[in-house]
């Protein structure tokens, strides 16, 4: 595994982008003994506004917490895609959801479009777990962390009654992403 992974998760407020980012970084720190930082652009606008969260995971010390060129970029809205697709590190991975993003240009990266939202709505019917499905897909594709580490971090943050639903969403994502394992 590379010793430093830089990720940017982007989308719009309310999609759970920040929560997903926190869960991912927390899983790395608590359940895999790695170092991780999670930072976010923070403004007056939250719901509906563009959001971005930077995550760095490493087995070494992390100082500068911002990501300039992500290895892994997730864009969950067209606006996020238009804004950030160009910053991806050459050879990196770009993950988008067909329902929200239409790819307009080719970048020097592996571009993966997955029907995450559609799958969640079809199989679970609750858009609230969309972000957890995205996390599953991300892990399925990149294998950055062990799925059980991320699930344990989800369990720490999600109310007990909703855990089964979140587990299902994660598994759906894992399967979707698994087809594109790097």
């Amino acid at each position: 595994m590379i010793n430093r992974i830089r990720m940017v998760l982007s989308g719009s407020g309310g999609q759970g982008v920040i929560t997903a980012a926190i869960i991912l970084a927390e899983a790395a720190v608590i359940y895999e003994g790695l170092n991780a930082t999670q930072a976010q652009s923070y403004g007056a606008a939250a719901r509906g506004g563009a959001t971005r969260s930077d995550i760095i995971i490493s087995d070494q010390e992390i100082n500068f917490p911002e990501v300039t060129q992500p290895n892994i970029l997730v864009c969950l809205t067209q606006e996020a895609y238009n804004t950030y697709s160009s910053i991806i590190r050459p050879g990196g991975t770009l993950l988008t959801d067909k329902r929200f993003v239409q790819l307009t240009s080719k970048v020097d990266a592996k571009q993966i479009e997955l029907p995450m939202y559609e799958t969640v709505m079809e199989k679970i019917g609750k858009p609230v777990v969309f972000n957890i499905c995205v996390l599953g897909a991300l892990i399925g594709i990149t294998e950055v962390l062990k799925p059980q580490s991320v699930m344990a971090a989800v369990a720490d943050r999600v109310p007990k009654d909703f855990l089964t639903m979140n587990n299902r969403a994660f598994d759906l994502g894992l399967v979707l992403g698994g087809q594109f394992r790097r």
Partner: protein
Amino acid sequence: MPKNIRFVQGNEACVEGALYAGLDFYAGYPITPSTEIAELLSERLPERGGKFIQMEDEIASMCAIIGASLTGKKVMTATSGPGFSLKQEAIGYACMAEIPCVIANVQRGGPSTGNPTHVSQGDINQARWGTHGDHSIIALTASNHQDVFKMTVDAFNMAETYRTPVVLLFDEVVGHMREKLIVPEKGELEIVDRLRTSVAKDVDYHPYLPREDGRLPMSDFGGEHRYNVTGLFHDMWGFPSNNPKIVSGLLRHLVDKIDNNVQAITRYKEHCLEGAEYILVSYGSSARSAIHLAQNRRSKGEKIGVLELQSLWPFPVELVKEKCAGAKAVLVVEMNMGQVLTQVKAAVKNPDRVFLANRIDGKLITPSDIKQLLRVIQGRGV
């Protein structure tokens, strides 16, 4: 894996540090980017029998913690620039009446309401001279969550040791970003408790009569002794006095008790500093970028090091002078117009070889921002 491992915001690390140090009482008025401190303490303090109170404003919050401290509690408030301005009068009162208290200022862009959700380090001088009149003050800072915790504990310890307000100067980036924190076990870090008087009940207690070692034992206000507390110059009973000897004696004491202990108060870290030709002096979140750059350039053979300051007031003049003595150039990396730069220039032998690498647009200064300036100074073009 240590069981106390956490993944938290810097503000939460501050809360954990405060609770570890024995915080009993918090009064505050929430303000971005410090709000999480109040939010978390509103839950955590009552759980362990402490008191949390949201006051009507920052002035009242500061006054409330002063009162609570006098009754024997370990106290704290948290704020950001605009609130820090409002607290200044009462901070001066705490300096004068020698009341231990901790004020966390999670800095955002100023002046005025400024740039609420973005980072800045513009309150360094305000921490020193925000309140009027000659006085000294202690201000600590940190660049990562483990150090936020440690500096918060140190702040409470120093407040008790020197009977003074201590300012924690954090910033939005450190306050809001999340990273690992390992909460130390009980007993791992030293905790300084309130020095209480041994004078028995109903025996005359002089609140401002120093012991042989210069320290002033306190008596919980409202408890066993009656005494006066004032913001006026005062005698050993705490009663107002304009006797020239008392006035000058007290003022010297207020300054000397801190300035004569610079060495004991100084907190710093070195990164790649040995044999460094170019030294980056930095603190808080901007130090993260400086360290990133230094480690990166070191691996390429460039002799760049970082002196990370964790105590800004009293300014560690001798330390900066000594560490920077052999440097070809010194860059002060900060997010203001050069507040620590001025101090560094005054401390070193060659002030004309001290430069400012700053950013003042609400964005975290980046390693490449620093690198660009460094290249110019090194004569390697732009």
